[in-house]
């Protein structure tokens, strides 16, 4: 096992990368959709690399391949040239610290962690997308018009053209609860990976609150509140016409 540790680790990491990208949309829980081709390429490259090193290694143990034996000695860190072998515990299997890679790899292969949800949204003060007040481009046609929570919020707070007025919008998110019986439609937005998730939320009026964390699609109209770009305008409010429980979308986050 020690001998083949390196190749095994590489294949494990490669397999984990392929499992979350090729078989389903699991990777969307962790990173943005744009990373998929790179993850697939990395997965394939890592498995190829693992197989190549395994083959190279099994060749180098050939007794007449002196060069190969030297290589392994060098990696073993037995005070080779310069004698700076300290703290650098390398077996022939590769660096020992590399075994940490089994943690995320096995987690992804066996129990892929769930997408971030209401817990993270609740911990983090919802951020307002920082923008100046200005006129936004016209909303796309459609009745109701599908919007992301982030787009709705920035139009509600910063659009001097008031493009939301008179439009019926439909948005999907999960429910979170505020004080005094108010509830919010909430969604996390991810730019690169789940570590940079930020929260958007819209207060929903006129519909009963579903349990925290339930995914719902809400259709309704904008309820103007507060001055343009002011703190009082936030969070924006939607007068809901209907709220329908849905399954968690394959991409649990909004992207920019």
């Amino acid at each position, binding site marked *: 096992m020690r001998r083949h540790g*390196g190749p095994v680790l590489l294949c494990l990491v490669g397999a984990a990368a392929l499992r979350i990208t090729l078989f389903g949309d699991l990777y969307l829980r962790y990173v943005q959709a744009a990373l998929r081709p790179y993850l697939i390429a990395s997965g394939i490259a890592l498995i190829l690399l693992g197989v190549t090193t395994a083959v190279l290694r099994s060749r180098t143990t050939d007794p007449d391949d002196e060069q190969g034996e030297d290589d392994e000695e060098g990696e073993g860190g037995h005070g080779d040239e310069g004698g700076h072998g300290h703290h650098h515990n390398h077996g022939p299997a590769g660096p020992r*610290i*590399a075994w940490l890679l089994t943690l995320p790899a096995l987690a992804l292969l066996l129990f892929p962690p769930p997408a971030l949800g209401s817990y993270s949204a609740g911990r*983090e003060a919802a951020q307002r997308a920082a923008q100046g007040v200005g006129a936004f481009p016209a909303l796309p046609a459609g009745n109701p018009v599908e919007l992301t929570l982030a787009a709705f919020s920035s139009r509600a707070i910063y659009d001097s053209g008031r493009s939301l007025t008179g439009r019926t919008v439909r948005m999907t998110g999960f429910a979170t609860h505020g004080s005094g019986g108010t509830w919010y439609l909430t969604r996390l937005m991810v730019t690169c990976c789940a570590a940079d998730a930020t929260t958007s939320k819209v207060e929903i009026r006129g519909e009963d609150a579903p349990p925290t964390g339930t995914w719902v699609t809400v259709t309704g109209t904008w309820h103007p509140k507060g001055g343009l770009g002011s703190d009082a305008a936030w969070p924006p409010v939607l007068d809901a016409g209907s709220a329908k429980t849905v399954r968690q979308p394959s991409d649990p986050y909004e992207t920019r």
Partner: protein
Amino acid sequence: MHNQRTVGDGLRLLTRAVVHVVLGGTALLATATVVSFLGPTLALDLSTPPVAAWWTVFTAVAVQGVPFLLLGTVVSAAIGAFVPQRVLTRLLPRNQALAVPAAAAAGVVLPGCECASVPVASSLMRRGVAPAAALAFLLSAPAINPVVLVATSIAFPGQPRMVLARLLASLGTAVVMGWLWARFGRDDRLRPPRPTGDSRATGPRAFVTGLQHDFLHAGGFLVLGAAAAATFNIAVPRSVLDVFTGSAWTAVPLLALLAVVLCVCSEADAFVAASLSAFPATARLAFMVVGPMVDLKLIALQAGTFGKSFALRFSSATWLVALSSSVLVGWWLL
């Protein structure tokens, strides 16, 4: 005679393969059985919200890091295996004072986040580039490459000064750190990046061994950094931030510290900085300048590559220089 030997070798290889497959298969089967029995109980433990969120952030940072780390190690192994030592030393000015800014500006060409730059810098040193120049490259590459600058301009629409300020402050920090290292740095502090196998070996074979070693080594430290980042992400409530938004004196160092613990990758940090709208512009600039140069994940990677004592000293010095340079540039431009 020779024929006989190859046949013998083939047989031996075959036997070994069979033994491996049987042993591995049994082990895998055993693991699968145990896991399917224990799985539900474990999953229950995992499902408490904070623990689940920790795992998600932890795997997310690792997943996000893998392609970039691989890119970095491929470049680094390629430099190690295919670029003759003389080429690099000839490309850079011999005078260290000039080589540092040249190397820092060369950071523009490596499009990636910070995970990629550590192995590349290490292989540059291994190939005889002066440590001061390689370190300047290490700091500037993740901060000033075109992908990051474009992301910054998207995150701050209508504020080209923010992009310019980020470019100047990051470049300034990288150059100053390079010069500081050239003047005061002791190269013996810097554990010389170990040659992988035989440093004189070149060609495809050295490429494969170097790549395997570098990826595994850096990957282990990436996981360590991801664990630290996830822990802080879950443990530090964001509402703490609101206390400090008022005064620039506390806001700037606070966001500079936040950049260290959050470990947001350099392509995304502009969006996070933009969302911290309650903070003054200079503080947000400091967040974007410090983030790609000093964070927990990077400290872990550097400790693994160059040694722990180096990583701690270098990172704290870089943090101070990055902070001062963002304050200066912010005061001038923003």
